[in-house]
């Protein structure tokens, strides 16, 4: 069996039919599918081990705690964090970014300070900063985008200044596919004394990520986009920053001592983990990371590069189709496009009729769509289980949509 066949056999959902056709799932940028290894790890946890963690003296609780903390260690290694204490479990990348904005932001931002983000951000890396700027009186600024759909570097150099306290940017755009030069952008932020907050929701699932080499201050990502379950995300942070931050949510597990007169906080990472955590989900995410590691992130990136280049070429065969963002050599495995006057919803619906699942809309990134003056795009995205044959089916279905709606 080829590697690809073996991978596909690990994903039960790929056996599914949609409208009588085999499912071609081209929507992994929104959420990936899960291999049975991940599902089995969670199921086994519930069937053999489940108990609440951290406080129990009994066997199940000891085992659950060990599995939960082992998962943290596994995830820390995946991004090369110096210590698992720097890996905080959240619900998703969105909560991770909110945690930084609320906790670090409220303690550090004041009127006159500037928060710099980019026009290609997902709403999850825009709205938290809008909210915290409103609360603290800091000013929010946006790095513009070039006509090619990449960061405007001269403008960036102008916008970064000694008032900039935070530079928050996505490592890979979920609309343009653009891969930003994270290490370089982090260095630019540090040069003016700002911290670098990296939205890794799209990069961590697809590219080798080394938080120490990249020198990021914070990195946020979601489990469900990288073969893991829903309900779990990660915030990585530099130790000194995390130590200095006030807690975010209050409750069980995040305290050292609660008196009626006040409380003392627990050590990292627990200071930021209030209440019973997503235990099974942490274990599922560790299994996902294990799966990716066994493939190797180089294989993952290479597979996606190939299929994206193929899809890029085939899409450009279609008259009137325009792909947003940079060429295939500087992008991740997703292609957002417009096709004449056809509405993305209609395109996606016709594709669905052919068993091809793509996303249509603004992909939670309205500013970048405003920038291009289009309300919505259609997006096909690829992951480890996608094939050239699925790309061919995408193309065929697009021709069908054209025939139906062009008049």
């Amino acid at each position, binding site marked *: 069996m080829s590697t690809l066949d073996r991978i596909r056999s690990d994903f039960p959902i790929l056996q599914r039919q949609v409208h009588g056709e085999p499912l071609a799932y081209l929507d992994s940028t929104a959420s990936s599918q899960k291999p049975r290894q991940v599902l089995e790890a969670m199921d086994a946890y519930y069937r053999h081990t489940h108990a609440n963690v951290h406080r129990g003296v009994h066997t199940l609780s000891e085992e659950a705690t060990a599995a939960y903390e082992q998962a943290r260690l596994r995830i820390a290694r995946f991004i090369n964090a110096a210590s698992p204490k720097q890996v905080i479990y959240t619900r998703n990348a969105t909560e991770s970014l909110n945690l930084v904005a609320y906790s670090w932001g409220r303690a550090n931002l004041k009127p006159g300070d500037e928060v710099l983000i980019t026009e290609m951000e997902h709403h999850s890396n825009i709205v938290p900063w809008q909210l915290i700027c409103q609360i603290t009186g800091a000013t929010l600024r946006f790095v513009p985008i070039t006509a090619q759909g990449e960061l405007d570097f001269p403008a960036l150099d102008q916008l970064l200044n000694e008032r900039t306290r935070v530079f928050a940017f996505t490592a890979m755009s979920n609309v343009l596919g653009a891969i930003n030069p994270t290490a370089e952008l982090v260095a630019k932020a540090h040069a003016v004394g700002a911290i670098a907050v990296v939205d890794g929701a799209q990069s961590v699932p697809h590219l080798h990520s080394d938080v120490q080499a990249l020198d990021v201050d914070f990195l946020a990502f979601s489990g469900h986009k990288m073969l893991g379950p829903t309900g779990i995300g990660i915030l990585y942070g530099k130790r000194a920053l995390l130590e200095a931050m006030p807690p975010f949510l209050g409750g069980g597990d995040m305290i050292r001592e609660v008196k009626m007169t006040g409380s003392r906080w627990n050590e990292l990472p627990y200071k930021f983990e209030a209440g019973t955590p997503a235990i099974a989900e942490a274990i599922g995410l560790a299994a996902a990371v294990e799966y990716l590691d066994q493939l190797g992130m180089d294989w993952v990136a290479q597979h996606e590069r190939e299929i994206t280049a193929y899809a890029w070429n085939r899409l450009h065969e279609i008259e009137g189709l325009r792909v947003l963002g940079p060429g295939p050599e500087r992008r991740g495995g997703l292609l957002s496009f417009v096709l004449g006057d056809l509405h993305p919803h209609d395109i996606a619906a016709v594709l669905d009729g052919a068993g091809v699942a793509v996303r249509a*809309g603004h992909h939670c990134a309205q500013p970048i769509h405003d920038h291009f003056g289009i309300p919505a795009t259609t997006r096909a995205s690829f992951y480890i289980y996608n094939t050239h044959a699925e790309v061919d089916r995408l193309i065929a279905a697009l021709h069908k949509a054209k025939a139906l709606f062009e008049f």
Partner: protein
Amino acid sequence: MDDLYRENILDHYRYPRHKGHLDAPDIHYHDVNPFCGDEITMEVQLEGDRISAVAFDGKGCAISQASASMLSEAILGMTLDEVKALDKEFILEMLGIPIGPVRLKCALLALKTLKAGAWGVEEWPE
């Protein structure tokens, strides 16, 4: 899918009825679908209690635009109270196609806009 784009939907999409604007609408309301950015403006002119003229404008998918076009035809001559009483089922019957929860928002956008206008509220809460 083939169910979704029946000939009458495509026909209303291609040749929308009542598309445009009224000179002096009594009710004029605009709304967007937050999930996809589709927009609809509904305009209505009254003679006494009855709708004597209607126009819609908008950008969006075949479902939302066909729904607005068909709705515009349907409400001509209705009283405002009748319009206020229109519901989801009315639209679904009018379209005559099976619709899932996400596309339902497209299908209902025109009615949602119209009802907010008819009731004079900021947003019609479904």
